[in-house]
């Protein structure tokens, strides 16, 4: 089997999570039904919710299951925006139109906010990143201090899904709390890699109705199934629903709840939490092996983001004079699966908007390659990648950039 080094895209399901899914899928019952079948389904669902809440440091009622990370992020951003701007006698005139967002966010966040800008009167303030991909705290403080009453919400990644840079979440949560602004954190890439304690951060940063109020996570990034995620939503926070219907899950997310997926998600979440500290150490060791190996094998390659202060399983580089796209192809053919960044529509690679937000040039952005490690990664995987890289780099450099002038006779 080819070596899999794209765990940030999705990571293999744990065998225990697959078994739990199959067993739960065999059970009959809608958890909203009153009869015994329904009660049994409800029991499985709520046990799953409790287990997942445990791994996130929140109360079970604060777990809202969604179809995945993208829906959780959309629910948080649009839901907070609408809840903070209630319509008055049927008229919608947002009193708090501003949304604060760092550059280089995931498209779920960027596109949801831009949709609000286009159709719902929102005004986006883009918060600058430094060259390492960290949000500039002083810029956040300045923006939050500027007429905080006009701000609907602030949303940010806990750690960047492409370059792995970890953000100062607690500092920003404290700033947001002091200004009375709710904060949503997209932790899809972080969950299972770093400890997340929703309650503790709220306690430490003075989160009441404001500050950290919501976190988005997804099951398939931690060994659970694709198709389920969760929005951690503070019990003190109301959001307007994205999806209307039967009023399940605090009226926030209508629709029959997926018991089997939730049960499987819970198994993966508990396993990830149990192995978290040991696994982080192991992954950092493998990651440093990748970083040292790449910088040695390819002179001129640069590590994007900081060496420490990045996700344990993430290594992200810019290679000089070639397309990341060519490298990806050559490594794939050589039996090593990596990525240029986040997956994209129709397979058309875009120069990384994250690297642009970090002040990199277009050429540096085009030569990007992301290697992400996970629970099945071994030193042999890393060595196979490092063995295939030099030849791939030579060929990719020969091919250069797609817009080069053709020199065929």
């Amino acid at each position, binding site marked *: 089997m080819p070596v899999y080094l794209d765990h940030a895209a999705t990571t293999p399901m744990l065998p225990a999570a697959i078994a739990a899914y199959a067993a739960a899928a065999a059970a009959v019952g809608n958890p909203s039904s009153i009869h015994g079948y329904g009660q049994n389904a409800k029991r499985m669902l709520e046990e799953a919710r409790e287990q997942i809440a445990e791994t996130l440091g929140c109360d079970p009622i604060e777990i809202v299951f969604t179809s995945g990370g993208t829906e959780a992020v959309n629910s948080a951003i649009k839901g907070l925006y609408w809840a903070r701007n209630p319509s008055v006698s049927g008229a919608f005139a947002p009193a708090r139109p501003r949304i604060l967002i760092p550059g280089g966010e995931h498209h779920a966040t960027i596109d949801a906010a831009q949709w609000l800008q286009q159709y719902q009167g929102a005004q986006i303030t883009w918060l600058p990143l430094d060259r390492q991909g960290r949000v500039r705290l002083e810029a956040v403080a300045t923006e939050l201090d500027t007429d905080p009453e006009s701000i609907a919400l602030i949303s940010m990644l806990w750690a960047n899904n492409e370059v792995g840079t970890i953000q100062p979440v607690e500092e920003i949560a404290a700033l947001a709390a002091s200004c009375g602004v709710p904060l949503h954190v997209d932790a899809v890439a972080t969950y299972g890699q770093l400890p997340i304690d929703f309650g503790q951060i709220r306690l430490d940063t003075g989160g009441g109705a404001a500050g950290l109020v919501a976190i988005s996570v997804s099951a398939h990034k931690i060994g659970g199934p694709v198709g389920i995620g969760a929005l951690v939503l503070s019990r003190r926070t109301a959001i307007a629903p994205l999806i209307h219907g039967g009023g399940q899950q605090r009226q926030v997310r209508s629709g029959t709840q997926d018991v089997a997926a939730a049960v499987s998600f819970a198994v993966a979440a508990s396993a990830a939490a149990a192995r978290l500290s040991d696994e982080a150490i192991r992954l950092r060791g493998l990651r440093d092996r990748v970083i040292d190996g790449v910088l040695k094998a390819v002179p001129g390659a640069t590590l994007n983001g900081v060496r420490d202060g990045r996700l344990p399983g993430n290594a992200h580089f810019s290679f000089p004079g070639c397309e990341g796209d060519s490298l990806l*192809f*050559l490594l794939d053919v050589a039996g090593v699966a990596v990525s240029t960044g986040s997956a994209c529509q129709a*397979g*058309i690679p875009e120069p990384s908007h994250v690297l642009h937000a970090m002040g990199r040039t277009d050429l540096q952005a085009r030569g990007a390659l992301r290697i992400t490690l996970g629970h099945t990664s071994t030193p042999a995987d890393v060595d196979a990648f490092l063995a295939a890289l030099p030849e791939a780099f030579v060929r990719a450099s020969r091919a250069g950039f*797609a*817009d080069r002038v*053709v020199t065929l*006779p």
Partner: protein
Amino acid sequence: MSGGVDSAVAAARAVDAGHEVVGVHLALSRMPGTVRTGSRGCCTIEDSMDAQRAANLIGIPYYVWDFSERFKLDVIDDFISEYAAGRTPNPCMRCNEKIKFAALLEKALDLGFDAVCTGHYASIVTDAAGNRELHRASAWAKDQSYVLGVLTTEQIAHAMFPLGTTPSKALVRAEAAQRGFTVATKPDSHDICFIPDGDTRGWLAEHVGAAAGDIVDRSGHKLGEHDGALAFTVGQRRGLKVGTPADDGKRRFVLEIQPKTNTVVVGPKEALAIAEIAGSRFSWTGLPPEDPAVPFTCDVQIRAHADPVPAIAQVVAGAEASELTITPDRPLTGVSPGQTAVVYLGTRVLGQMTIDRTRSAVPVA
């Protein structure tokens, strides 16, 4: 792999022939449409998905390679500037010349591939001495050797056309169905891929602009006015708002578009007959004629589906550049500068020329 039936079958046949094949879909637009509409045959996300499904069924890896920047520079911008200069370009030929068998081929060679294999209906034949020649396909109705006439010897050295020997497109569709390809019954594409609604005139008006100008006869007498010269094609009769009838009472046709003065020249149908075409942008496919300065017999074809016409051709050295001059045995019709004339020796493609100028068979009276 465009997402069409031809490239899918070509890929499958290349695999059957024992080659190590990778499916590549060319992304030629930064803003691809979502679903296919009408007869626009490539470039949408749906087409990309069709191509990927075919690759999955064949069992080959599949990638999208982005050539949108080169495509804009070499095909779309060229299309605009050629029209603006009063010529009628063929963007599909330009794409073969500059993208499929140039940018794509060169990237492929650099990445370690040996050849570009496409679903074009044309054949490559190796002569006794080992020289590769480009020939018409067995399926004459589908023959696409015309649009490949721009390929040079170096390019055909790295080209493969597995459909060239198949007698008909129906057989290719049947084979696709038998192989289980979902695209077996997908309609053929006809329109220019970067003009989604097929409205070339409207697209040109938007990208080149349209200004009112004069309609004149061959002697330069003004007969009327037009809203934009690009709306006309040589040979067109309809839409000419010239009130006064011709002296002989006959209908008038567009003979020429003069972009510099934004003038449309009209005249009698007979004047559309072209006795000679010439151009300085020409190339040879495979071995060139022994001495192109000596007149040689050939067939000339001026459109993708025009009949070939016997002709005498010759390269004439000029002060600045040499020029290929082609004199057909009988006059050609529907010729305008910018079009490509492909020169054949029997079924073999000998070369091609972009037409710079034409000489009417009927001089001005």
